[in-house]
């Protein structure tokens, strides 16, 4: 599909249900994962969102509007940057970064948010709510709400409010109400609980603008589709630049949206390895980590069957990560399925490894990455040493590090 001017639609391949495969079944399942485990009161709202999205995804008018926003507001397409000085530490492999940090608001979250904000208008709803960990999804949601004249309420764990104070101020400036969540671990998982409670109460005029590829069907599918522009662009760009597909694609995994966003266009390219990097926190042996896929077990959290950090009686175990955006004991069901099917591989990166990669990229390339994205960078360093100097690795630089200066100042004694 092309626009009237004849330029290809960046988001055009969102249309065509099933063309790219890997769509969930009618119950929202990816294999055994996904589905809906939610109060019955929310089923009609989820059905409504799913039905409207089904119409929207094949409506050229909707796709044009989305595309227009991605180009003229979010700053797409984002560039690819080769980072040879950084790659010296990766055994000489070629490393290319997909620069989602250069989007408006500074992270990949804006892609999904613009899509869902348009969907909110189609649904005739006037209020959006969202959870946020690092604050990037909250900032993106507050931004889209300001742009489209929607009321906006953001739930954020009190611990996260503190470590991402800058983003709290940004959201407020954008006109959003930020509600610190003080129960449980006071991080992302509790913010999600609180957002669900709001949604069930205000569902008649409110859309829950879910920020990652987790949660009940249809969120994993919708968020993925709005994020997959990352991989669609990157695949085209890397072919143009290097004349071939990369050997591996690396991304950080919190809930999994930036990872699925860049993986998805490569799923059918069997020669391309897909690697996801979870937060190893203080190390697997300390129990203080967010290694959901690598250390968790299959269960139900936040409306979806997936891998979960849980004890033997199904109680969620609190996660830990230096990066708020990866500090989550669940993960999107499509990743659970990619893991079990063997198509993607998931690994842990400790806080210390991530912070080393964070400072290395800053010093060698003049790019300050988000701490979340630094997990993918640390992964790429290891991967490069494994794959050798002939290898090309594509890394999703999902966001920029401005929001992390407080953490960096403490960590590096700046």
């Amino acid at each position, binding site marked *: 599909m092309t626009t009237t001017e004849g330029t290809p639609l960046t988001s055009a391949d969102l249309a065509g249900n099933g063309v790219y495969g890997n769509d969930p079944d009618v*119950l929202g399942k990816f294999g055994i994962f996904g*589905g*809906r*485990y*939610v*109060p*019955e*009161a*929310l*089923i*009609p*709202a989820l059905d409504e969102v799913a039905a409207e999205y089904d119409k929207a995804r094949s409506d050229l008018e909707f796709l044009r509007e989305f595309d227009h926003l991605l180009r003229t507001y979010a700053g797409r397409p984002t560039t690819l940057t080769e980072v040879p000085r950084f790659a010296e530490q990766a055994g000489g492999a070629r490393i290319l970064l997909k620069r989602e940090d250069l989007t408006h608001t500074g992270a990949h979250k804006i892609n999904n948010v613009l899509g869902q904000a348009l969907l909110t208008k189609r649904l005739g709803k006037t209020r959006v709510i969202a959870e946020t960990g690092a604050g990037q999804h909250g900032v993106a949601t507050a931004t889209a709400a300001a742009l489209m004249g929607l009321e906006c309420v953001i739930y954020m764990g009190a611990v996260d409010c503190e470590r991402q104070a800058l983003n709290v101020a940004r959201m407020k400036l954008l006109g959003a109400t930020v509600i610190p969540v003080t*129960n*449980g671990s006071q991080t992302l*998982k509790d913010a*999600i*609980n609180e957002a*669900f*409670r709001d949604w*069930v*109460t205000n*569902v*008649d005029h409110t859309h829950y603008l879910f920020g990652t590829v987790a949660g009940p069907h249809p969120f994993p599918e919708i968020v993925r589709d709005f994020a997959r522009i990352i991989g669609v662009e990157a695949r085209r760009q890397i072919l143009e630049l290097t004349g071939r597909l990369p050997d591996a694609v690396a991304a950080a995994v919190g809930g999994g949206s930036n990872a699925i966003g860049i993986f998805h266009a490569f799923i059918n390219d069997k020669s391309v390895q897909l690697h996801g990097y979870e937060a190893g926190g203080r190390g697997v042996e300390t129990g203080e980590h967010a290694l959901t896929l690598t250390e968790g*077990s299959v*269960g*139900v*959290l*936040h*409306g979806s069957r997936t891998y*979960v950090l*849980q004890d*033997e*009686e*199904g*109680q*969620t175990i609190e996660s830990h990560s230096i990066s708020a955006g990866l500090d989550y004991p669940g993960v999107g069901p499509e990743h659970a399925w990619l893991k079990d099917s063997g198509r993607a591989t998931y690994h842990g990166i400790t806080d210390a490894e991530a912070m080393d990669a964070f400072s290395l990229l800053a010093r060698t390339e003049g790019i300050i990455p988000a701490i979340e994205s630094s997990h993918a960078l640390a992964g790429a360093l290891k991967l490069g040493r494994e794959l050798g100097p002939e290898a090309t690795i594509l890394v999703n630089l999902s966001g920029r590090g401005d929001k992390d200066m407080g953490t960096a100042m403490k960590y590096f004694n700046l």
Partner: protein
Amino acid sequence: MTTLQTVFEKARAENRAALVGYLPAGFPTKDGAVAAATAMVEAGCDVIEIGLPYSDPLMDGPTIQDAVHRSLTNGTRIADVMRTVEGVAKSGAATLVMTYWNPVDRYGAERFARDLASAGGVGTITPDLTPEESEPWLAASKEAGLGTVFLVAPSSPDERIARVAACCTGFVYAASLMGVTGARESVNVAAEGLVERTRPHTSLPVCVGLGVGNGRQAAEVAAYADGVIVGSAFIRRLLDAPDEASGLAAVRELAHELAEGVRR
């Protein structure tokens, strides 16, 4: 053991609604929960729902969240939930477990059903288990002779109500409002309409919960529903009590008031 069927038959014979009380296991303490539930039964509750404390209770308001948090901090485990059921069932009430799905899933559906039945439980209420995902639990419950209770909500269209009701044995739980658990100033007017919309789809009793907290509200709901479900208001009494004895007296007093309400 008192069954749900005998409870509702008895209530109908007395021309009143049944009174259903909720308390999480392990709150205020492991033994305290049995004592409080027993007091509730002695003062007029026909059915007790024992909540299985879960780390992520996304359908619950602040009062139940608070109680559940304390219970988990007290170290409540599934074995304690079963022991609580055993203790409460002795009081003569039909005793159910209300639980989010993940703890049952993890424990094993068949094992959970077997253990609950041998503890004297008569069934479960599963607020986040949808009919689409209910098959393993329906099978395990049937095998163990347990009732299954699912929820309908004011937002449920008639097809959903039919689908949910078809999964229920024992009774159908009508959530009075769109929202989380917690006592409210008044019971939502939508509740009566929801009960009316549910009737054509089931011959089972229909009970109303969420937002009921005093005798007046219980009487109002009892006029159109077969059962009145009260949770947060009992917990509030226990949370506000300076010590265990006055907590017990307070829940007893509330149960009396509610029992009088369902008989008005």
